[in-house]
């Protein structure tokens, strides 16, 4: 089959929806197609014969310019991605964007080009990836949105903070209706910052996952809930449970964590990973709120930390029947 005529090739170059620039060995522009005329707002007659540096002074010695040099000198092809290089060429989707200097999102390919009887040339192809970029952005937003609706903590697999809030709210109303005691445990892993600092975040994450599994194995009733409260803090909701019952659960959990024997060379007063526990129990009246229950458990947890860690403390609610 015969090669297509130069006339046909020229028509194709004009029609393609891709920017095509060809530079000779001296980096002078020898080809500038219709697409690039439109989006650079520069007619071919203004740029042909000029050097890359003359036409794009802002790009001298930048990533694209280095890639062009590498194609001409070393015969290497380069990819210049949109993700790592935000819109290298001053190209615009339309004149309005050009007026606002809002550049088109671009993917650029720079390739060496052999030309008969002449030193090597360089081909620069530019594609408009605005659509892909906005699609990816949308996907990412949806992933974040989905994540915000999930009830499971991604790292540990137990209930997350959102599930905890919903569950506590429900159990609180139920306890008020039934005039039954509701207990809350707040748990904080001791010296966890030192653990992360000395063993690294990956082992820190693995440690949290082990602790979560150990805590989750202790309660047995269907409405008990162990949740990751945030960072290295966990919370346990225990419906129909008085102080004595809550203390028993807390003590069982404290022992379970110590029994994991997770090495911790930089803990204040233990060789293994331990946790401190704050217990708070309320039989909710009309005036009481979940805030009071959480606040009580937090106070007790603080006392447990002050008392030397690896222990359980109880907060006494004023006027509480528990």
């Amino acid at each position, binding site marked *: 089959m015969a090669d297509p005529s130069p006339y046909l090739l020229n028509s194709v170059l004009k029609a393609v929806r891709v920017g095509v620039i060809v530079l000779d060995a001296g980096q002078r522009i020898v080809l500038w197609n219709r697409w690039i005329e439109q989006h650079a707002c520069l007619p071919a007659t203004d740029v042909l014969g000029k050097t890359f540096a003359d036409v794009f002074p802002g790009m001298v010695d930048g*990533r694209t310019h280095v890639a062009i040099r*590498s194609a001409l000198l070393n015969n290497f092809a380069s990819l210049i991605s949109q993700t*790592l290089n935000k819109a290298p060429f001053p190209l615009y989707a339309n004149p309005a964007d050009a007026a606002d200097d809002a550049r088109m999102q671009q993917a650029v390919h720079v390739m060496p080009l052999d030309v008969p009887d002449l030193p090597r040339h360089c081909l620069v192809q530019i594609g408009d990836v605005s659509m892909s970029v906005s699609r990816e952005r949308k996907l990412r937003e949806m*992933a*974040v949105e989905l994540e915000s609706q999930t009830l499971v903590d991604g790292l540990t697999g137990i209930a997350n903070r959102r599930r905890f809030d919903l569950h506590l709210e429900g159990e609180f109303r139920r306890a008020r209706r039934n005039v039954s005691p509701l207990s809350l445990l707040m748990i904080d892993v001791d010296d966890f910052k030192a653990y992360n600092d000395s063993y690294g975040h990956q082992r820190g994450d693995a440690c949290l996952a082990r602790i979560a599994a150990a805590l989750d194995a202790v309660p047995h009733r269907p409405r008990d809930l162990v949740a990751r409260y945030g960072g290295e803090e966990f919370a346990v909701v225990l419906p129909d449970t008085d102080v004595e019952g809550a203390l028993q659960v807390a003590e069982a959990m404290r022992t379970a964590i110590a029994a994991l024997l997770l090495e911790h060379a930089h803990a204040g007063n233990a060789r293994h990973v331990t946790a401190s526990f704050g217990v708070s129990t309320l039989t909710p009246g009309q005036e009481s709120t979940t805030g009071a229950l959480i606040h009580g458990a937090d106070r007790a947890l603080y006392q447990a930390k002050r008392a030397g860690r690896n222990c359980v403390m109880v907060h006494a609610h004023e006027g509480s029947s528990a």
Partner: protein
Amino acid sequence: MFKLSALQHDALVEIFNLGVGQAAAAMSRIVKEEVTMSVPLIAFQSRAQVAQTLGSGEGRRISAVAQQFVGAFNTEAFLMFPEEKSLEIVRLMVGQSLTMEELGEMEQEAMSEIGNIILNSCMGAFANASGRELQGSLPIYHAGTGDDILGLSGKEWDGVVLALKIDFNIEKRHIHGHVAFLLDMTALQDLQQYVDDYLAGLTK
């Protein structure tokens, strides 16, 4: 397995370190943050050995960027990282948190560019060292086990792999990757000639 003389070995290590040094400088300019890279180790291995190092036996997933080089010697070059490490590199380079567990389309392209920079720099250092030319293709992104990736050039292939370990440092993070050059017997001889030319150039 094929062996280089101590002198040839040291020459290769030096050339590759020169190459990744240039790649690190190019990447530093992109992220406006210090990136350093070095090649502590090179070895000739069989394809199966390299796949094993990459955890193929355990089904470990690898992200790879592949490029063809032809000319003074012909080779298919791969830059490979465990999939989670390539995610981390792109995260560090792009400076945004990605919630996805695999690289999306745009991140794959970013990873391809990173591979392109590193492989071109390695081969560029090579070409400059010996004054002989190589032609490089555009990068292609692949994901799969080391076996899948290195097997892409066909089952019948019976050559040797020049395997490099790469240490990559960005924002106080240290990440190890691998570069593999697939060399058939002809390419291997050409490579040796190539290194000899370089050494001859040094002693002139």
